[in-house]
């Protein structure tokens, strides 16, 4: 299943080159709409980036955050289910975990926050150690070995993306260094990108500590409340010709990005 995903990425690598610029433009337009508070517009722009694009995971990540901002937690969780699925979990930076934790905090689902923290710890420790090695120039051979195949795009290192800076193959300085066969410049730039990602992990970890502190405060209030009842979960909506399948532990590659979530919200009186 994971192999099939990577095969699809490889096949579409060359075709995607022409689309990368277009996707970059869509991403920037979506970010501008998000910054202006036009969340609907931002969501539509993020949705235009196709699954075969190198920017697709990043678009889903930012779309999840947009849904959260707009208060549509069900859609945020649907995107987060795609992101934190076993297929993509190892390709993620720290931000989706923060978005997931914040969404669960807004829904008063504290048990799910702790589940997310465990996943974050498992993946980000591995990522931090790998990025530190890149920043310290202890993994130059690994970078050079991947750089030989970077013409394939993300597929060149997708199976070990957790060990490299996010989408580093799309960095213009990296691309120029590869074009001019300038290994020194390439390694220096990768080290810089690794340091930026380490900084992002550090900042996100601090934000997760804040969420954990908020959980401690709210837990006490919730435990004291007489009524723990939450509103009933809503019904799933599907269009006339859409197919519905149950969600199980077995993941099918055609199902990612097709999740719909109905969640229990905070008990009355304990909303954030």
């Amino acid at each position, binding site marked *: 299943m994971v192999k099939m995903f990577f095969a699809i990425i490889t096949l579409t690598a060359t075709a995607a080159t022409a689309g990368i610029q277009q996707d970059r433009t869509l991403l920037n337009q979506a970010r501008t709409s998000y910054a202006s508070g036009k969340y609907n517009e931002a969501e539509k722009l993020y949705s235009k980036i196709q699954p075969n694009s190198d920017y697709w995971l990043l678009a889903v990540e930012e779309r999840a955050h947009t849904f959260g901002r707009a208060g549509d937690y069900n859609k945020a969780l649907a995107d987060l289910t795609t992101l934190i699925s076993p297929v993509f979990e190892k390709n993620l930076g720290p931000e989706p975990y923060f978005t997931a934790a914040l969404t669960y905090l807004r829904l008063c689902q504290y048990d799910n926050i702790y589940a997310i923290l465990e996943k974050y710890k498992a993946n980000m420790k591995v990522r931090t150690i790998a990025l530190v090695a890149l920043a310290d120039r202890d993994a130059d051979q690994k970078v050079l070995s991947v750089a030989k195949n970077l013409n394939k795009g993300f597929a060149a290192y997708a199976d070990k993306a957790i060990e490299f800076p996010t989408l580093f193959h799309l960095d213009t300085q990296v691309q120029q260094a590869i074009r001019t066969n300038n290994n020194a410049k390439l390694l220096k730039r990768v080290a810089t990108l690794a340091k930026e990602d380490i900084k992002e992990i550090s900042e996100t970890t601090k934000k997760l500590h804040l969420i954990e502190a908020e959980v401690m405060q709210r*837990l006490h209030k919730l435990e004291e409340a007489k009524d723990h009842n939450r509103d009933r979960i809503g019904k799933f909506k599907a269009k006339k010709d859409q197919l519905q399948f149950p969600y199980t532990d077995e993941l099918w590659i055609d199902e990612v990005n097709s*999740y719909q979530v109905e969640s*229990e919200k905070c008990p009355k009186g304990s909303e954030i």
Partner: protein
Amino acid sequence: MKTLALILCLISVTANSKGILEDIDSLGNNKQIAERSRQIRGENKIRIVQNRTVDRNNRFELGVNYDMVAGGDPYINTNNLGFQVDFHFSPKFSVGVRHYETYARLSAEGERVFDAYDRAFSQGDFRSRPEVDYPLSSTMGVATFYPLYGKLNFFNLGVTQFDVYVLGGYGKMLLKSGTSDTWTAGSGIGFWWSQHLSSRLEVRYQNYTDKVNNIERNEGVTSFSAGMGILLW
């Protein structure tokens, strides 16, 4: 100077990384809080909701199929070569026309009976010649309803959606003895491989009236069918 700055920067990263790792490790470490949070659970229901990969709204499908037929006259074995045209109003319902060319031959029992007659005749025993009747072709109008759907993970090469369907039809059958009304009912699975390629596996009961020695008989056959189709725009 540049080298010194780089060395200092690298030392700084290495020193900080231990702190970052400790910071990550300390997340969720308050076991008491974690346990208390598990007592206040929030439930989420997740479902897969996806579009059909093949659009079957207002589309024609042309198909050919081969049937192995069981039942009917015990002295005859038949197979069908079928041709069908269906119009899909929606993924749930289609109507169409089916035409079957039937190929008949004597079964083992039929050969035995006719061989016995030939032997008897050659020895001067002029008993009645056995008679058989068999279909030559049939044409029916068919309505198909697709109430169930599913999908197959096809050897990890791709995922194919399918529909389970039931069908009913009515038409005319041409037999050696003449024509007969015929009706059919059955069930099958339609696989939609791409926007233009389909296949079907089907089991179908068909009823008709044949005539042997001027006596009409009500016959029923069961067809096991495999076919391929093309979906047109």
